[in-house]
């Protein structure tokens, strides 16, 4: 087999990694390179996106596979054993050199490393850990590292991965366990859940030690996962119910939804269509309502329903629960305010600060948010009240608030 040059390997192994939606560099422990031998820092908080690709996705990390050789045959994956995609494998040193070279030029926040399964789960996991260990111990690299965990790997290796990484992730892959069995015959839902459970226990153990004992570094940015949307027939309600369970059971930081998108050399077992991007967007919005706005999944959507594509889930909820509106912005508590469609956390908090000084009028609201026209049917201010029962209750309210359909047709 002819040897590939490094640039060609980089092309193959980043192309193979792009179907993982996560690229976040958020949540790591604050640290920097001062007093060390190497380079790197993590500011904590949101992380930095160093570039954006024309698909609108942030490029924060060098997201690559160690190898795209794989013994598994997952129907939705470009790297499955039965695909004729070009294959490559990096050495540990090559990954370290690329990471450090890119980092020095300020292209990236760090590394997101995953891999196809070669030989065995333990062998593959050991190789991933070796990259992270080399970066941390040989090069004193203090930037961000996200490692993919192979669920069937031994617990000791998973623990070691979590000690070098800021974040680890294990993909749940599909909303239905039955679909996983059908589309990814080698993967076991039981191993995936057990590995997630082990990570949660590890994270909790590292945090609960007394304040004097320095907590062992154990994936300080927690764990995340990804679910592919549209490769099976699960409705949105089922997808969100799965997320709700994952958030509570394993303390996940994020569930990423990835619209199933055409891949080169696809299998005949899956329909190749344009990815359902609008649906993916609505799922993220609903997920956000659960994580940040205190909505329960059942309030947003029933288990067998799909989210509406034309309007966002908060507006859909408000239209179904008009009895709770209008909300008086001068008296409502924060939780009530956050249920108003178009009103977010930052603007609500500003309103709460301002109303300690004076009663809010519509023009004040207009200075705090650009979305005042959207808010008007749902709010009361000192000088504004929607036209009594005629406004909040209007049958055509939905039609007036929904964006014109051609906007949603964007792809």
């Amino acid at each position, binding site marked *: 087999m002819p040897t590939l040059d490094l640039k060609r390997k980089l092309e193959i192994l980043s192309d193979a990694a792009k179907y993982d939606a996560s690229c976040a560099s958020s949540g790591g422990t604050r640290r920097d390179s001062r007093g060390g031998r190497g*380079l790197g820092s993590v500011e904590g908080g949101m992380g930095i996106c160093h570039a954006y690709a*024309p698909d609108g996705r942030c490029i924060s990390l060098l997201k690559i596979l160690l190898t795209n050789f794989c013994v598994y045959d997952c129907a939705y994956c470009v790297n499955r054993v039965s695909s*004729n995609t070009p294959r490559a494998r990096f050495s540990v040193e090559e990954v370290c050199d690329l990471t450090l070279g*890119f980092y020095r*030029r300020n292209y990236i926040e760090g590394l997101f490393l995953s891999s196809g399964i070669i030989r065995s789960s333990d062998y593959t996991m050991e190789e991933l850990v070796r990259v992270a260990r080399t970066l941390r111990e040989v090069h004193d690299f203090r930037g961000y590292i996200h490692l993919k965990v192979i669920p069937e790997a031994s617990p000791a290796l998973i623990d070691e991965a979590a000690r070098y990484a800021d974040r680890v992730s294990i993909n749940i892959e599909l909303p239905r366990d039955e679909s996983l069995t059908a589309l990814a015959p080698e993967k076991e839902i*039981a191993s995936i859940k057990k590995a997630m459970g082990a990570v949660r226990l590890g994270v909790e153990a590292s945090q609960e030690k007394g304040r004097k004992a320095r907590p062992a570094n154990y994936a300080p940015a927690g764990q995340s996962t990804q679910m592919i949307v549209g490769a099976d027939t699960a409705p949105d309600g089922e997808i969100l119910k799965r997320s709700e369970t994952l958030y509570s059971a394993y303390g996940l930081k994020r569930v990423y939804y990835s619209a199933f998108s055409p891949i080169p050399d696809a299998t005949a077992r899956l329909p190749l269509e344009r*990815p359902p991007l609008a649906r993916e967007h609505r799922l993220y919005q609903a997920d956000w309502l659960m994580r940040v706005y205190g909505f329960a999944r059942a309030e947003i959507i029933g288990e067998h329903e799909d989210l509406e594509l034309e309007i966002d889930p908060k507006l859909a909820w408000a239209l179904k629960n008009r009895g709770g509106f209008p909300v008086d912005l001068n008296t409502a508590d924060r939780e009530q305010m956050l249920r108003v469609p178009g009103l977010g956390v930052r603007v609500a908090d500003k309103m709460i600060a301002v109303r300690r000084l004076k009663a809010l009028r519509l023009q004040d609201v207009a200075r705090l948010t650009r979305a005042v026209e959207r808010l008007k049917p749902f709010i009361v201010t000192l000088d504004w009240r929607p036209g009594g029962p005629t406004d909040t209750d209007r049958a055509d309210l939905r039609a007036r608030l929904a964006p014109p359909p051609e906007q949603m047709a*964007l792809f």
Partner: protein
Amino acid sequence: MEVVRLASETDVAGWRRAARALRAGGVAPEQTLWTVDGSGGDLLAGSAMGEGGPTGAGQAFTVPRAFIELADLVALHRSDERFALLYSLLWRLGHEPRLLEDASDPQVQRAHRLAKAVSLAAHKMKAFVRFRQTRDEAGDERYVAWFEPAHRVTELTAPFFVARFANMAFSILTPDACVHWDTEALVALPGADPAEAPREDALEDYWRAYYASIFNPARLKVGAMQKEMPKRYWRNLPEARLIPELIAKAEGRTAAMVAHAPSTPARRVVRQVERKMRDASFEAQAMNNLEELAAAVQMCRRCDLWRDATQGVAGEGPGRAKLMLVGEQPGDQEDLAGHPFVGPAGQMLDKALAEAGAPRDQAFVTNAVKHFKHELRGKRRLHKTPNTGEVTVCRWWLDAERRLVRPRVIVTLGATAALAVFGKPMAIGASRQKAHQLADQAQGVVTYHPSYLLRLPDADAKAKAYGLFVEDLAFAWSLAA
């Protein structure tokens, strides 16, 4: 009219000195004009203030910390109004001390907007600076970047790069200011010309290869990209030159992927899969021991509880234990760890067993139901009692454990365990401290579940119930030993 001439566009210290003196001297905002030396705005030079601004000392005053922080950011904005706006806010703070909390005030709103733009410019500078590797005459490495920030944030942002690249010599050149770090000291110098920066770097080809490959042409969202990476930054980003072509070819690449007929897998792969299918049928076998049972529980689909649980939790303990303890079901911690009674109830059980003189490592500990039944409350999983149907189908596993272990005494902890072992509900208070004969020759002993003790709110009641619990465990151990 008082005219203040600041030394430079970013002369925040000069602004502060002048503003303090003007405000102390009672000079209203309408009577002041702020200019910067060399910016061509000093037509009114020769004011009463003179060089360095006014020095009049009036009454002392304080401003909120939030104002200082706001002013430090706003002063870096490129708009000409910034110093006058800040002075106007400072003036108004004199009689409106809580002014800054009113985000709906037009001037406060304007200042917040400028500050936000400056913060964003600093953030984008951290993101979009691109270093190029150079070597000086001595052969030492230095990384140099040319960058054009949206606002005058070069010096504000320099500490970020120092913290990140403390051991790497670097320079960031911008039209406003340049910062140089030699691994020991940071030096700030006036603005430079793009011609002074290196033209290329060998790794940029690799970076472009990465950028092009990580892009998924099936999900073109140009607006989303441009919102976060505005075109004004593109000319200094090595990867940006690829964007027009990536966009132009995206549609065609996607259509080709959809149209492409699935290819036939290589013969080597087909043979592998066939071998695996042939071997798989030998793997499902009957269970003859506790290890096989524990593995088989993982596959249990007899009811729906497995769906939201992490794993099935089988019993654990010596394979020939004389004493078997049966609880209700795994809890949150047991579900994650895969072992029975390791959470708070398990700790209470351990303590009680120790006091009863019954060592836990000589008992077989298990549950009536093998998967964790729960409901979601906020971000927590709350225990939910399994129903009769679930207890009944799960008896299959408990019966298998009883058959394999053959204990002399089975202690049921709580009502669910009693239902599973005796096949009917038992009143705990009335049935405890008795040996109940079971069909498989074992004797049954009934007591409370440790979780019940944990939930008792009243300390006296808790202590009393705990005493009875220890008594029951001691009674069971005496029967078994």
